[in-house]
């Protein structure tokens, strides 16, 4: 036992080591990615570990391992569970032999996500047990114990931390790492693993019959607890429970929900001891709906009567304000303060030298009235450059693009998608677009890495998560195999070639693919690639503003003229767009700032 300062995701990884885990899969997604990375960095790993190409693939691999008797975890962000849902729903019927933990990290306030969906709804939907940690310590302990829980009921268990658990830190007590000793073995059992209608009709009641015992076990294991202190009670789940505990007066009861399904009999007994109760939880009113069902005349407040918001994330200060409006005086009063109003925003921005920027620049010039479906990755920031018209979910740049083209839109459709997103779920859309005769350009932004989530390798990188060499899958070959006859690869730092390639694509019929390839500027820097900086000759600069409009964070204005700062990574694209020819490779030896 030792106390360490751990990130929530590190704590979850340590819990897996203590279980111990035998098999690890996942697809990167904020806020879930570090679990796999921490498990990768463990010395002398004795478990299998992979970054899968998408969450469905990750879950099915992990499920197979669990069918073979191994303890497996599969990690993803909440929206990844949509991709994996097909496997998830029926895995509840087949069950598992080895413990299977499906970690789906929710993101209240959508810090890095396209929506605020609540993974607990999947737990109710699939009838799988779900653990909902309120602290890093709980996340660690739940991860450690979830495998045994899964084996107790022969069911996958969903672990649902939120951003403020995954990406918060704290003093955490961890135990000894255990060694993985299991060897997977598949025992043929078609009635369990072949879900033809006859078999699945028998499996469904078995899933339902497990529910009462699960509900009881979650109370017995101490995940759902009640401390009765007075006539008023707060029911809280997940990290909201930590916020509540910080400001809860000593005479108010706390009913803490850390796991689902909640035992309704137990909950009814706790609620009935109070005059009224307040339910505080983030996102969907999962707990509140159960409390309302069992309250039998005890007034319940929460989201449904407008006391607690449905959207966004909570905080200690927000919870204190909610309690106050309900009639509980919190132990802390927080001042009402407001940020200064008129500061320029500082949104995230594509890096200096990012290969995506010249692609967006060129697209907007070659396809002036084009429609630009895009996808999920750093390049979504192309929104700031006016080159992203749609983003909905992984892989949808291709399918939204083909759909727009089939809808009768006559303008050029120019879709952008990253390499990892293309591997994840872009390929079927491309196959479909070709098959059904769409008219569009697909630009694959191939920076050889899954950059936004922290530079995880993918099938194009040539290396696995563990550092082993892997075949570098050819995106060109995949596109041709999908039936695309016009596939061109271009260096996005060579603006003239890039523009010429896009112009050529514009003239071609059908589905055209342009692969813009250049390593992510961050991985290039880490690999010690140095190109030398560029500088502006102030005597030549006409202050026309073209390079400023390019939007590179290394380009500033000084005395009305352009100035290139030390952020420059030497891509040289600004020198190619400067109409005055004022930008050139730096001749000074010192950095410019």
């Amino acid at each position: 036992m030792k106390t360490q300062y751990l990130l929530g995701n590190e704590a979850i990884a340590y819990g897996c080591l203590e279980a111990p885990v035998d098999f690890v899969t996942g697809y990167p997604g904020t806020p879930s990615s570090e679990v796999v990375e921490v498990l990768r960095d463990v010395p002398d790993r004795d478990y299998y570990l992979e970054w899968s190409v998408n969450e469905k693939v990750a879950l099915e691999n992990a499920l197979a391992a669990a069918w073979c008797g191994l303890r497996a975890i599969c990690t993803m962000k909440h929206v990844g569970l949509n991709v994996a849902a097909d496997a998830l729903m029926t895995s509840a019927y087949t069950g598992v032999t080895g413990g299977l933990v499906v970690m789906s990290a929710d993101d209240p306030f959508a810090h890095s996500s396209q929506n605020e969906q609540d993974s607990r709804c999947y737990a109710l939907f699939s009838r799988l047990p779900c653990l909902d940690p309120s602290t890093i310590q709980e996340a660690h302990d739940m991860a450690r114990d979830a495998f045994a829980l899964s084996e107790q009921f022969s069911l996958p268990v969903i672990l649902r931390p939120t951003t403020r658990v995954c990406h918060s830190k704290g003093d955490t007590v961890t135990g000894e790492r255990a060694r993985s000793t299991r060897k997977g073995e598949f025992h043929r059992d078609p009635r369990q693993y072949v879900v033809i209608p006859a078999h699945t009709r028998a499996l469904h009641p078995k899933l339902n019959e497990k529910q009462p015992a699960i509900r009881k076990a979650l109370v017995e294991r101490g995940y759902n607890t009640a401390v009765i202190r007075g006539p008023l009670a707060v029911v809280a789940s997940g990290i909201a429970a930590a916020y509540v505990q910080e400001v809860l007066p000593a005479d108010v009861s706390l009913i803490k929900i850390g796991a689902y399904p909640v035992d309704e009999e137990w909950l009814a007994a706790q609620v009935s001891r109070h005059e009224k109760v307040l339910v505080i939880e983030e996102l969907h009113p999962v707990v509140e709906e159960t409390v309302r069902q069992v309250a039998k005349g005890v007034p319940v407040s929460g989201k449904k009567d407008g006391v607690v918001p449905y959207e966004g994330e909570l905080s200690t200060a927000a919870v204190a304000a909610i309690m106050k409006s309900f009639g509980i005086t919190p132990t802390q009063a927080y001042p009402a303060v407001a940020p200064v109003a008129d500061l320029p925003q500082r949104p995230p921005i594509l890096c200096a030298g990012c290969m995506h920027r010249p692609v967006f620049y060129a697209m907007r010039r070659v396809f002036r009235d084009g429609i630009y479906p895009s996808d999920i990755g750093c390049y979504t920031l192309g929104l700031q450059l006016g080159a992203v018209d749609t983003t909905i979910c992984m892989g949808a740049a291709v399918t939204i693009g083909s759909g727009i083209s089939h809808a009768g839109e006559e303008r050029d459709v120019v879709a952008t998608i990253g390499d990892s997103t293309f591997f994840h779920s872009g390929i079927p859309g491309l196959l479909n677009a070709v098959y059904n005769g769409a008219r569009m350009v697909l630009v694959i932004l191939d920076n050889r890495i899954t950059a936004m989530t922290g530079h995880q390798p993918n099938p194009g990188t040539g290396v696995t998560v563990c550092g082993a060499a892997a075949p570098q899958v050819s995106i060109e070959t995949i596109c041709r195999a999908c039936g695309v006859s016009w596939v061109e690869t271009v260096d996005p730092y060579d603006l003239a070639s890039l523009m010429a390639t896009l112009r050529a694509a514009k003239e071609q019929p059908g589905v055209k693919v342009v692969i813009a390839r250049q390593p992510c500027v961050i991985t290039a820097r880490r690999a010690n690639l140095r190109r030398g900086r560029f500088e502006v000759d102030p005597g030549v600069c006409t202050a026309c503003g073209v390079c400023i409009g390019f939007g590179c964070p290394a380009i500033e204005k000084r005395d009305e003229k352009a100035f290139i700062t030390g952020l420059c990574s030497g891509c040289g694209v600004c020198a190619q767009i400067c109409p005055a020819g004022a930008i050139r490779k730096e001749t000074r030896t010192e950095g410019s700032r």
Partner: protein
Amino acid sequence: MSESFDVLLVGIGGQGIILASNILGEACIAEGRSVKGAETHGMAQRGGSVEGHIRIDGKFGPLVPPGSARLIIAFDMLEALRYAHFLAPGGTIVSNNRFVVPTSVYMQGAPVPDEAAIRERLSSRPLCVVDAEGIAGEAGNPLSQNVAMIGAASRFLPLKPASLLGAVEKLVPKKTVETNRRAFEMGRAAGERCGGGKAGA
């Protein structure tokens, strides 16, 4: 109920805020104290405004409530102003003397923020301005600015300098330990010149 000493670290993605907040967290562990913190990961790190919350002796939630930070450590002066409302009455802001103008300001032709104006707007609060770049350069490594800032802030933190230095040594790359130690000490001296002589015992 909560008696935590709340610290907010603010700056721009890529400035080393996560490492800086880890130094505070590890120092708490070294002193056997509880600590909670939260930080920004993911896309927001790409040059965006980022924040790190550290609650020394914290036992519950990781987020510093607005108006409750006893100390704000700002790696960029514009960000110091953006988050100044987090400061508790009597709290201190330790800020880098530099700021980066957001690229969007130039792109949109918006007025460029002015250093004197930012300082003026911060001046109603106890403010310690530090030349982190100068210190880091003098210490021998421009990348040690974040450690220089922690050094300056250490005068206002309820953590022992030895605990903080121990955390620095544990967390920075081995070959940069010496330059980072210098950056910390020089930062600490700069913090002292701001009048931060009381805390840190």
